[in-house]
């Protein structure tokens, strides 16, 4: 009999959804828009797509070897488009007013002073070994101050972008300095051997996880699809809580409460319905990743041999989201309470859960908080499967936590409902 009641409750929920075409469009289409937009944006951050160069101001007051080298490197990097018709003052104004993201100003005599500085230091070193310095190149020890390359950033520039540019310029200058030092030693020692040839004596080799004989190489799609799918799944909190609040305002919940059907059957009916929505949402997002992304110049979302595991995670993540929605809908009295609180709390959970900023980059306190976020459990489970090649055993802990979260939320809701209404 309870199964029959559950079935009727499920049918009722499906009918309610079916009659709300606008709601269905929002539930299914918005997550797809979200995932496409975020992936396109994030992918272009790492990949230099044709026509997406960032215009920056480059002012060359040196007009010599080093500035030409830096200019060449920047132009060859394909990230920036150099704008050169500015002086330092007008460039500063243009950048600080937000017309350009940044300006690079190469100081006057940079090449000349750097050469003199290096020659002087190399000469000193060579002399200390008792080797007579080349008469032609013997120069007086000169006291030359370090030169500053001025970087101007738009105050609204993203910190990550700023740090990346500064690191890139630093690396460029460091390599040029290295070359110069090698060259100075060559000149002093009179050797013809090219000392600069093996400049990278140490290099990095990334070892990635493997599946069979294939490397699993992460890309923005492998990161974004599960992360934003999870975010979208948790947004089920909003329509579900509104559904529960509406039942209170319409008075239909009164009939449920006075009937001999336990409240949990009512909740289970909603759980089944919204769980199906979560799974469909996820499948649609996966379909976009697999079939649409390649047409959008994005990497294909690779789910080969992982679909079953991914759906399992989706079911448990969906349960956690539904549990939260049920609690919110039970506690809230009006849609004005449940909708904004639901949306905001999902954004907070996503932030805490590491959807936007990886957990390891968070402050220690927030890393501890993240451990209690259901979105973090879900995200870890997805990453374990997609990027770390785990099986069900590897994600069992996360699945249990997500399920316990659902049970806890629903139990609190039932307890609260009983406390409020029981005779």
């Amino acid at each position, binding site marked *: *009999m309870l199964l*029959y*009641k559950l079935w*009727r*409750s499920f*049918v*009722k929920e499906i*009918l*309610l959804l079916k*009659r*709300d075409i606008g709601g269905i469009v929002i539930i299914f289409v918005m997550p797809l828009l979200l995932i496409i937009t975020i992936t396109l944006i994030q992918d272009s951050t790492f990949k230099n797509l044709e026509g997406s160069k960032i215009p920056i101001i480059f002012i060359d007051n040196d007009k010599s070897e080093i500035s030409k080298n830096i200019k060449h490197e920047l132009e060859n990097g394909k990230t920036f488009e150099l704008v050169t018709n500015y002086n330092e003052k007008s460039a500063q104004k243009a950048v600080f007013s937000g017309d350009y993201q940044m300006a690079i100003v190469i100081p006057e005599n940079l090449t000349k002073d750097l050469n003199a500085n290096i020659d002087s230091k190399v000469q000193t070193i060579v002399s200390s070994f008792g080797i007579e310095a080349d008469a032609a190149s013997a120069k007086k020890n000169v006291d030359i101050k370090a030169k500053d390359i001025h970087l101007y950033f738009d105050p609204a520039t993203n910190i990550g972008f700023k740090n990346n540019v500064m690191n890139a310029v630093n690396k460029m200058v460091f390599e040029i300095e290295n070359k110069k030092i090698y060259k100075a030693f060559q000149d002093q020692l009179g050797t013809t051997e090219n000392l600069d040839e093996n400049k990278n004596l140490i290099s990095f080799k990334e070892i990635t996880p493997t599946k069979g004989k294939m490397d699993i190489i992460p890309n923005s799609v492998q990161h974004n699809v599960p992360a934003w799918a999870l975010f979208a799944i948790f947004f089920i909190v909003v329509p579900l809580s509104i559904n529960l609040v509406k039942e209170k305002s*319409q*008075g*239909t919940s*009164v*009939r*449920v*409460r*006075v*009937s*001999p*059907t336990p409240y949990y059957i009512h909740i289970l009916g909603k759980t089944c319905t919204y769980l199906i929505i979560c799974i469909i949402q996820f499948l649609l997002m996966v379909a976009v990743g697999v079939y649409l992304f390649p047409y959008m110049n994005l990497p294909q979302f690779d789910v080969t041999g992982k679909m079953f595991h991914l759906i399992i995670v989706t079911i448990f993540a969906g349960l956690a989201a539904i549990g939260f929605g049920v609690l919110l809908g039970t506690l809230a009295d009006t849609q004005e309470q449940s909708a904004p609180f639901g949306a905001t709390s999902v954004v907070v959970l996503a932030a805490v859960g590491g959807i936007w900023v990886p957990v390891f980059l968070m402050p220690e306190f927030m890393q501890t908080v993240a451990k209690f976020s259901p979105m973090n459990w879900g995200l870890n489970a997805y990453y374990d499967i997609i990027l770390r090649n785990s099986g069900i055993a590897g994600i069992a802990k996360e699945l249990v936590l997500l399920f316990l979260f659902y049970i806890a939320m629903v139990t609190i809701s039932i307890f609260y409902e009983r406390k409020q*209404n*029981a*005779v």
Partner: protein
Amino acid sequence: MENIIEIKNLYKKYKHAEEFSVNDISLNINQNEIYGILGPNGAGKTTLISMLSGLIKPTSGTFKINGLSPQKDGFKLRQIIGIVPQEYALYPTLTAKENLMFFGSLYGLPHKKLKIAIDESLELMGLSKFADKKVEQFSGGMKRRCNLIAGTLHNPKVLFLDEPTVGVDVQSKKAIIDYLLDLNKKGTCIIYTSHHLSEAEEFCTKIAIIDHGKIHAVGTPEELVNRVASAENLEDVFISLTGKELRDVVV
């Protein structure tokens, strides 16, 4: 005749309220009765019905319905009572039939039996041809009738009605009253609140007039009218017992 409802010293005081909404009410209601609970706004009618139907918890006191205590026999009790709330309490985007299928199933009625009960009730209420129309398209009277069917599909032993005819036209009111009389004939005890005193006078077999949470008079409509010397009808009795003072209530 056997009492189907026995209420003993029932009190209800809401949180932060200064006064009791229901203040020491004791009542016995017979089976097959159509019992009117009348009173001005804020008298405690809805609170009393809400307690009896299990929607809110009494502050103190006890009651039994058909010998069942709400604390001990909650499940059995909910099976034999029906409630028709003042608001429509229907899903607007579902059809009348879909609404009734859902609410009927909450009482565990088998699918076939439920379908028959729905068809019969819709026919009785003149809603058969609108069975597959969404409730949001219904007029106020149609919604009231559908609301009534939703609370009675399981043939409850006791039916609580909170102003079932408010805001409906004469035809709908007649259909509702006829439907309720038919139910009563089949053995359902009806507990009814209303502001329509003439309707109550015609419809109820017994009436309790309550005010400030207390019962001021109980009897058949005739007994009540006879009890007040100058009264010609129930309205005169009502005014004489509850006064002419306006009852504006802020909940």
